[in-house]
């Protein structure tokens, strides 16, 4: 196994390489931006139509009051979790291979949360009255209903989003200072000067920086777990068969980490190519990420089985029916596709040769993401079409093009935000890569010194 990063890489070179990504990416970057813009505008068009006409154009109906919007909402929330995993959990565990890739993972967290927030807006029947759900002292003397899991959701997501943004920002300050020092004109200069807050890298700054970063990381981990548990509560707290499952919170968290890791692999590959980060986003790092993903995939598969088993062996006939319906009814193709993508495809990551094979991993990561998206859909939809009340069973509901359009649009929106971010803020953390290089070379020096000493001792004999 090769090295995660070259240890002899010069610090100035790191600055140069990364700063270049802010200026001249490959042409593919502009293609991606263009396509994202196009896809996003399709979504915007659909949303405008839906906003003006009513939710009916999404082809939802009485039992199926929730559709792809909620499914995609969970998907995007889930995607955000691996950013935290990489930046916070691995940070606490001193796994320094995360350093070249955590910045974009964190950006992914932020932007997928923003995308998820979009779905809250898209889903609401009366978006224009959304302020009713905000807890602010109003003239009307009334408050939102704090018992509702949706409100917990809103609160959790707000906390998570703002904490993630702060975390991302705090972690980027030294890099923004680098940008400030190296870019000397235009709006970028002004922007970096403003954002760097006058960072000089003094010992006082670094000292407080370290503690702050660590503290927020500590907060983020339980927060991330709570966020997806709360999203799971939207379902687990309800009374509906197929939703009212005790294991939903861990299951959701596992799914979240899973889809997030898969997305990291996808973006890893794209960024590596687009911004010519071959030196930093190295194949050994990819390999580690892939292995991590595989482990999480197995956790998810396990929890999935647990869910089936607990339904199977319970006496809850209605929940059992829903499960059977998932496997044999109208949704069966999608359900089996989810099982295939989520539990079978990851075994491709066991093949050593493929772990560092970019095209294969790209395809695998896309399939994993598809599987995870289907999983969310298969949680939301079948319960509606096969709930407690047989009279309202309805298996014919199919999302309209409008609904699909908005879901696709969200991918455009995410890509757009993410790609623009990567062009403005260094997507590889320069100072941390320097740390990584520094520590590794120090360690190596120590090692070499030890070897030499040993040799010297041996030679003395």
């Amino acid at each position, binding site marked *: 196994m090769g090295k995660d990063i070259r240890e002899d890489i010069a610090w100035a070179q790191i600055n140069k390489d990364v700063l270049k990504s802010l200026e001249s990416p490959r042409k593919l970057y502009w293609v991606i931006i263009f396509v994202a813009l196009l896809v996003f505008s399709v979504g915007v068009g659909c949303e405008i139509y839906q906003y003006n006409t009513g939710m009916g154009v999404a082809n939802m109906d*009485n039992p199926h009051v*929730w559709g792809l919007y909620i499914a995609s909402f969970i998907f995007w929330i889930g995607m955000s979790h691996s950013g935290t995993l990489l930046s916070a959990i691995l940070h606490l565990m001193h796994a320094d291979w995360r350093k070249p890739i955590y910045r974009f993972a964190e950006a992914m967290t932020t932007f997928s949360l923003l995308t998820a927030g979009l779905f809250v807006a898209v889903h609401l*029947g*009366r978006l224009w009255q959304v302020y009713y759900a905000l807890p602010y002292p109003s003239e009307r003397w009334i408050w939102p*209903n704090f*018992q*509702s899991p949706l409100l917990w959701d809103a609160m959790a997501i707000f906390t998570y989003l703002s904490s993630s943004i702060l975390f991302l920002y705090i972690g980027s300050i030294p890099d923004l200072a680098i940008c400030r020092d190296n870019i000397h004109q235009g709006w970028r200069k002004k922007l970096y000067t403003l954002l760097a807050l006058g960072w000089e890298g003094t010992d006082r700054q670094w000292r407080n920086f370290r503690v702050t970063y660590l503290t927020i990381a500590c907060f983020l981990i339980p927060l991330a777990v709570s966020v997806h548990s709360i999203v799971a509560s939207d379902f687990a707290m*309800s*009374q*509906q068969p197929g939703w009212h499952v005790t294991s939903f919170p861990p299951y959701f968290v596992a799914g979240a980490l899973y889809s997030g890791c898969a997305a990291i692999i996808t973006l890893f590959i794209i960024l590596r190519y687009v911004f010519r980060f071959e030196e930093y986003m190295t194949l050994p790092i990819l390999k580690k990420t892939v292995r991590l993903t595989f482990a999480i995939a197995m956790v998810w598969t396990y929890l999935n089985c647990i869910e089936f088993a607990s339904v199977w062996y319970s006496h809850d006939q209605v929940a059992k029916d829903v499960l059977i319906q998932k496997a044999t009814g109208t949704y069966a193709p999608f359900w089996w596709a989810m099982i295939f993508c989520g539990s079978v495809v990851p075994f491709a990551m066991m093949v050593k040769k493929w772990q560092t094979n970019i095209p294969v991993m790209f395809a695998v990561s896309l399939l994993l993401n598809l599987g995870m998206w289907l999983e969310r859909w298969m949680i939301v939809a079948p319960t509606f079409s096969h709930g407690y009340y047989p009279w309202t069973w309805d298996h014919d509901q199919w999302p309209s093009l409008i609904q699909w359009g908005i879901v696709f649009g969200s991918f455009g929106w995410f890509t757009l935000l993410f790609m623009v971010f990567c062009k403005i803020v260094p997507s590889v953390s320069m100072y941390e890569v320097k740390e990584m290089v520094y520590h590794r070379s120090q360690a190596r020096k120590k090692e070499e010194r030890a070897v030499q000493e040993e040799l010297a001792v041996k030679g003395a004999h």
Partner: protein
Amino acid sequence: MSVSNLLENWSKFRHTHPVDDKGIPDWEAYPSDIKWAMSIDLDACTGCNACSVACYAENNLPVVGKDKYSHGQAMHWMRVERYWDEGDNGFQAEQGARFLPMMCQQCEAAPCETVCPVGATNHTEDGLNSQIYNRCIGSRYCSANCPYKVRYFNWYNYPEQENAWPAPLNQQLNPDLTVRTKGVMEKCTFCKQRTYTARNNAKTEGRPVQDSDVQTACQEACPAGAITFGNLHNPESQVAKQWQSQQVDLIKDIQEKDEKEGNRLRGYRVLEELRPYPSVMYLERVRESAV
């Protein structure tokens, strides 16, 4: 500061209803002397749909048309369900069809209420599950959590964009309640406007509400008189007598019917075992076995 209010009335605010934390039913603590409830005799119900049409007329329900009906977007607060006996090879028609009028069951512990993010659906002191249209932001969580699926969402702007009441049909609209616009949830209210008027008049006259004061639109129309509606809290009311004689208790999730007589009674509530404590009792349909 309402925190002081909170501390002063802590026990009141911690009160659960209709069954306390330890699972003990608590009728006595009912917040008012009115609890609206209904009973529907399925043996009398003929399934003729008059109740449903009466509901359209009373409650300003939009006619959605074939296309939207086919998408399951019908707005009937009261739907009459038709079930068949199931035989070995498909449905059997020998004993006719079974009809069940289904509308909001006005649960005492309604699953829909807790989940609304804005508190647009609440439990009123007279035992209704309220729906405040203007507060609704259309998250549809209530409907997702309703076991009966009796909540109907305004998928379109029926009054204006969809022109559900082309002039002069709009002159028929009942001014006692709003016409709901797109994006809000709605459902059966037990004819809130009628119970309101009944309570108002009784209050002005300084007397309790009686059976003769109020009828819901469906009850009023029902040609077979299958629907009984009234104040469950008043032992003189027909509905209370029926519930009592059928040994159905509002605040029990499993009815403890008297061993000897109880199993010859026919009162039951739909999906009672989920413990929403619904306010509608159905009386089993009876079929003669001698023919």
